[in-house]
């Protein structure tokens, strides 16, 4: 299917819009193959090249849609993994309500003892014969889960064999969050907010049919998920002086009596860095569009963290006696992080998370050094050791 045919199909769909109800419209769009055109027919797509999605999106601009951030984990991580590793039944069951936003997804990977070293997860999945065949019972603790309190399903990595080396004893599951063995608790951060959750699993039950990939191949499956996560980050075009820089520049302009020459040059340095970052993002998107994606994505995330931390640190210093104040420590559960909606102190503290969440800056530097620059890996001491024998 080429761009013209797709455009025609999209126009026809819009022209014959079946309903004004958002959910019904989205279901119809899915069934017409106009959800994600590169997915197979019958699963929301038309088997078309991924690059043609923009044709559809352009034609359907203004029609009822989901908040992409609300269903982001489902779209960006669960869906590609289900598509690649799910059985036909699993795909049929999960992809449509995922895409329409009827069912929200979360991701249960990280654990207190498995952060950067994700392959060290210790949540234990044990086999048990259930009423409808094989079930798995899961016990363990997951952490840093966004949306866990609103999610119906989770993608999850658990240890099925502790006697194997850590990468080999993992399996990958879909977990129904709506069951007694799943307890979700808010995880308060240094900002006072709780954007994330801890999830405690006590014999939580998963039917074997909801396993993705073979037993013991969870790490391989997780790679698909994580690859898609990395692609998703930093994908948006931003205007000049937006985001954190915009907030800090505004503060600067509104507080002329607080200017000092030292802070001025620091601000200008950050302005330059931010603009160079913005241009690098633009360049990266042009490379992607030209079909030649570069390896710069990790560098972008690294640079973004450095920049947002430097900028917000400067802003607090600029504000002097007002920098000593904070807007609100109340425990809140925001749906979204909005750097610009709150005060300098919040920005300063929240930005500290930018070098942790979605891969620490340290791990990103490892990735850049090894995968981009081709530097040798360090000596590994954990490759051939049974997971249960690793020092923890």
């Amino acid at each position, binding site marked *: 299917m080429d761009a013209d045919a797709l455009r025609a199909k999209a126009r026809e769909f819009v022209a014959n819009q079946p309903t004004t109800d958002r959910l019904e419209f989205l279901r119809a769009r899915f069934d017409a193959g106009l959800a994600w055109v590169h997915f197979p027919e019958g699963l929301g797509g038309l088997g078309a090249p991924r690059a043609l999605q923009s044709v559809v999106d352009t034609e359907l601009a203004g029609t009822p849609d989901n908040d992409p951030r609300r269903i982001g984990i489902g779209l960006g991580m669960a869906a590609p993994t289900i598509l690649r590793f799910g059985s036909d039944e699993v795909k049929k069951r999960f992809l449509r309500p995922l895409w329409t936003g009827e069912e929200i997804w979360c991701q249960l990977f*990280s654990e*207190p003892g*498995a*952060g*950067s*070293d994700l392959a*060290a997860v210790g949540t234990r999945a044990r086999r048990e014969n259930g009423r409808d065949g094989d079930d798995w019972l899961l016990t363990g603790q997951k*952490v*840093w889960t966004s949306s866990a309190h609103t999610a119906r399903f989770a993608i999850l990595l658990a240890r099925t064999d502790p006697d194997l080396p850590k990468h080999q004893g993992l399996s990958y599951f879909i977990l129904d969050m709506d069951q007694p063995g799943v307890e979700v608790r808010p*995880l*308060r*951060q*240094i900002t*006072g907010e709780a954007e994330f959750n801890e999830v405690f699993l006590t014999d939580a039950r998963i039917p074997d049919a909801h396993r993705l990939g073979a037993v013991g191949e969870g790490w391989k499956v997780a790679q698909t998920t994580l690859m898609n996560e990395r692609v998703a980050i930093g994908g948006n075009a931003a205007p000049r002086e937006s985001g954190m820089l915009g907030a800090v520049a505004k503060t600067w302009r509104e507080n002329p009596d607080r200017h*000092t*020459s*030292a*802070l001025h040059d620091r601000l200008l340095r950050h302005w330059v860095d931010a603009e160079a970052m913005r241009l690098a993002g633009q360049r990266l998107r042009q490379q992607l569009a030209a079909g030649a994606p570069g390896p710069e994505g990790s560098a972008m995330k690294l640079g973004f963290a450095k920049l947002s*931390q430097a900028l917000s*640190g400067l802003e*607090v*210093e600029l*504000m*002097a*006696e*007002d*920098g*000593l*104040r*904070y*807007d*609100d*420590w109340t425990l809140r559960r925001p749906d979204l992080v909005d750097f610009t909606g709150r005060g300098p*102190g919040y920005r*300063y*503290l929240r930005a*500290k*998370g930018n*070098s*942790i969440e979605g891969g*620490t*800056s*340290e791990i990103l*530097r490892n990735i850049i050094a090894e995968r981009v620059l081709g530097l040798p890996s360090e000596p*590994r*001491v*954990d490759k051939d*050791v049974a997971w249960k024998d*690793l*020092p*923890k």
Partner: protein
Amino acid sequence: MSATLIYSEVEEDLRASVRDLLADHASPAAVLARCESDQPYDLELWRLLGEMGATTLHVPEELGGQGASMRETAVVLEELGRSVAPVPFLGSAVLASAVFTVLGEPVPSETATLVVPFSSWQPVFSSGPVRSVADATVASLFIVPVSTPDGPELHLASSATVTPVTSLDLTRPVADVTVSESTVLARGADASNALRVALLTGAGLLASEQVGIAERCLFDTVAYLRERHQFGRAVGSFQALKHRLADLYQELVTARAAARYAADALATGEDVEIAVAVAAAHCSDVAVHAAEEAVQLHGGIGMTWEHPAHLFLKRAKADQLALGTPDRHRAALAELVDLRL
């Protein structure tokens, strides 16, 4: 004759006593719990510090103090920084106390504070409400710089309208203060000088608190990274982290020397302005750097409210603004050492 920058035995004994007391009263868990209580200050700890004489070390005996020096007070501040103990030490035992001492007035036993924005770095006499005053919510004596038609004056008030403010630093919150009735404590040049000395003293001694913060952050991080394992290794064995901690150690070494020198200068009265500018400029940034590295190198757990790392980060960042940001102190230094723009 060069200043003594090492700790004397007496100073080490003092440190040990204060550290013992803080171990009992200001554990991370206790400090964290108190942050969110009705009374963010630990008034019992504050009383005990007073009882052991730690709050009046540098006050001459004839003014009611211990007759030691700023060097000893600086050691107490290192320890308070190490535990981010929520006591009004800086506001009362340093800032207010310095005003009384300079003026030759007996230092009252009540908790006092100096009613200036905590970010002040030079004497300003104004009128009306004052924003972001440190340690005001538990003060019962207020020293107020007032601009009058007759010139600058320092006033003393025994009551004030104190409005607590949601503060970046959970362990030393600021408040807005309005004073209505007050008596004159000093006038003219005496008033200006006393305020100037108090701010210099505060900035110079704050450097020792910052050394305490930096030291605690560094060594807590080292301890955590020795225990924490990822990839089958202690995380502290990863060279990139080791090098960052080594750099931090280097900063701590210089920060301690600068803070000690400032304390000694405040004790002897020699080279005070340069010593304070150097210590304030240097130690502020070192403490923030150490606290930021502590949060980062603790990984996810350092981003959580339940871990004490954020208490140090918030204190360090607030201290960076307190009594003059580093760039203000560098600008002051430029004049003092003839490196003008």
